[in-house]
């Protein structure tokens, strides 16, 4: 009996040794589907846009001081003494604020407006220091005094007016939809069940979140990140102000189209630190001058003519 068991054990040992060896473990790699840094799905309600307030009404300008002669002790006098006006702008929104890759310089309607405001203080449009701020950084940049002004497709909202002051509107944009041509999206209602991209912290995202039924929303850092996501097939549409969208459309005309009626009006104002009321009045005075002397029209022709013929400058409204 023992021999049989021993034989069986030997056979077992032999057969297991002769069996085909297990193949070495193969590696598995998940496909790379990179998204712009910081892109994430939006699940919670962004800060609501507009409570009931007269959002476009701003502070009435006093007599406008001449360039280089600011009233002593005023915020403008401090800026004059510093020698440069520091303005927060955008670098990735075509037509309003983008970097010309060939020259490395920032250009667009907002950038030109910032230069004109520098001209109002110094008499020289080049005495401006342009700082790029992201949409989400705009309030903090003003509150912490990193910039004197924000001229960056900055929609005036009641919510924001609690934190920063705004000038009178210098442009009124309409929120529309930029969709891929074969997406079947024609109106806001068609966005249901689609993936839509917007920048975090913008009124556009809040308006999209309020849609019923709500589309799948992705929040990113900059508008060009949305275009990247469309081109990479990660979202179906982008929705924000028409001027921003036409800037994006210009970069991919073949595949994208601007569709839908306006989801809402977006008046753009110059952002100022809440406490600097003298600066708000000064900027309003400067804007009034630009409306009257044709400077506004000139800036429009230089930057926005390709979007639509000039509607004329938006009227100023004052809160007193």
């Amino acid at each position, binding site marked *: *009996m023992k*021999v049989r068991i021993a034989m069986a054990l030997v056979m077992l040992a032999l057969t297991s040794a002769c069996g085909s060896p297990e193949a*070495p*473990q*193969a*590696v*598995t*790699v*998940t*496909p*790379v589907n*990179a*998204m*712009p*840094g*910081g892109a994430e799905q939006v699940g919670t309600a962004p800060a609501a846009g507009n409570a009931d307030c007269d959002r476009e009404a701003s502070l009435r300008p006093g007599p406008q001081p001449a360039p280089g002669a600011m009233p002593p002790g005023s915020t403008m006098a401090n800026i004059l003494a510093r020698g*440069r006006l*520091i303005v927060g702008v955008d*670098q*990735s*929104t*075509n037509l309003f604020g*983008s*970097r*010309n*890759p*060939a*020259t*490395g310089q*920032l250009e667009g309607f907002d950038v030109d407006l910032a230069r004109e405001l520098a001209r109002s203080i110094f008499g020289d449009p080049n005495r*401006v*220091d*342009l*700082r*790029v*701020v*992201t949409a989400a*950084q705009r309030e903090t*940049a003003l509150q912490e005094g*990193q910039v004197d002004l924000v001229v960056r497709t900055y929609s005036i909202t009641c919510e924001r007016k609690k934190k920063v002051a705004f000038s009178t509107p210098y442009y009124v944009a309409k929120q529309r939809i930029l969709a891929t041509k074969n997406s079947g999206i024609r109106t806001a209602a068609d966005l249901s069940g689609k993936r839509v991209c917007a920048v975090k912290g913008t009124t556009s995202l809040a308006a999209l979140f309020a849609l019923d039924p709500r589309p799948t929303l992705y929040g990113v*850092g*900059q508008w*060009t*990140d949305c*275009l*990247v996501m469309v*081109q990479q097939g990660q979202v179906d549409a982008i929705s924000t102000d028409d001027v921003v969208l036409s*800037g*994006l459309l*210009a*970069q*991919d005309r073949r595949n994208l189209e601007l569709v839908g009626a306006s989801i809402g009006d977006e008046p753009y104002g110059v952002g100022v630190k809440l406490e600097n009321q003298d600066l708000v009045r000064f900027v309003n005075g400067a804007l009034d001058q630009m409306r009257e002397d044709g400077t506004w029209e000139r800036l429009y022709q230089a930057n926005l003519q390709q979007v639509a013929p000039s509607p004329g400058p938006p009227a100023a409204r004052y809160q007193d």
Partner: protein
Amino acid sequence: MTTTHTPTATLDARASAGWLRRFARTTPGVIGLIAVIVAASCVVAGVVVGGQLDSRIAKGDAVLDHSEPFAYNAQKLYAALSAADAAAATEYLSGGLETAPMRARYQQALADAAEALTDATLGASDAQTRTTLAQISAELAAYTGQVESARANNRQGFAVGAAYFREASSSMQTSMLPSAEQVYTEALAAVDEDQKAVASLPVVGLVLLLIVLVLIAVGSLILVGRTNRQFNMGLIAAAIAVVLVAAWVVAANVFAANSIEASRTQGTARFEQLANARVIAQKARTEETLQLISRGDITAGEKSFGDRIGQLTALLQDENAAGSVAAWTASHGRQVELYQGGDYPGALAQAIGPDPSGSAALFASIETSLNDAIEQTRTTLRDDVSAAGTRLSWSPTGTLVLMVIAAAAAVVGLWPRLKEFL
């Protein structure tokens, strides 16, 4: 059926065992037993000690053939990826008209990364490391695609080019580089483990040698008691051989340990320090260029740059690159001054311009100097580990030969005593 287990066979076995027991109690039996036990224990101890020494030499070879090249390639991969990102950023900042040297630097970094990836994959024994490397490889392919998208859009004047570049750099900084860093850190730890194993004392073998000595001593005493003769010359010769072996083993190990100690302080530790410095320098450079690409508030970026320069200075205080780091910090200070003063083109020129006192040239000189120091350290490490192997190289053979001689001496020495009874 059970033919092998007949009662007769069992009886035979029992009978011979009984005879052996009785014979062992006789004087010739005792002498024979001593000869067999001493000779056998000598051979066994010789084999065990030789095997242990052999495994230490094998560990040294493993450092030279496997773990050190792997760690080197993992380090090279990290540096190449980081260099690719820094080069792509500089190229992007330089505008639509990329200068040939910038493009060449980017291409060189990609070639370095490909080399390092291939060599590292070859050296990665576990599936997890190979998976990490494969993931890096897949992400690198996507990365280069994004960089080319950025370039194509940039040439058309489309701002979306910057977004593609940010996407590429973000995946590099948040995914590929941390993965590569992990592989490299683990690889360096493995090198250190192997190095320690080379220099460890073969304790089991030494204990066996001690036991052999005790057996010889006990055998000699019994022999003196039983035969009324002086100590047996054969056993004394065997004892001397065993002591020689023990001395050799200890001495070879002490010398090897010295070389290993040198390879760890002058090699591994310095290699790690330099490689860390290189990584930190690359991160600071990327920080510096990203400040200009994002062109926003630089407070957070400046704090991070300052921290990195602080670490770098601490790591490099005794190195050649220390002077260049100070010069670079000064150049960066000028860049920030220009930037804060609103002179963006000036800041840009300071950061990426061709001026030999500008940040680009200074960073390149730090990079070159660190690279040379890393190569040199690598040579030191390999030479020292190889020297440790040389110290041990003849010890397994020598041990085995001496222990066989010891066994032979014991048998030859006892044979005349045994012959007196035959």
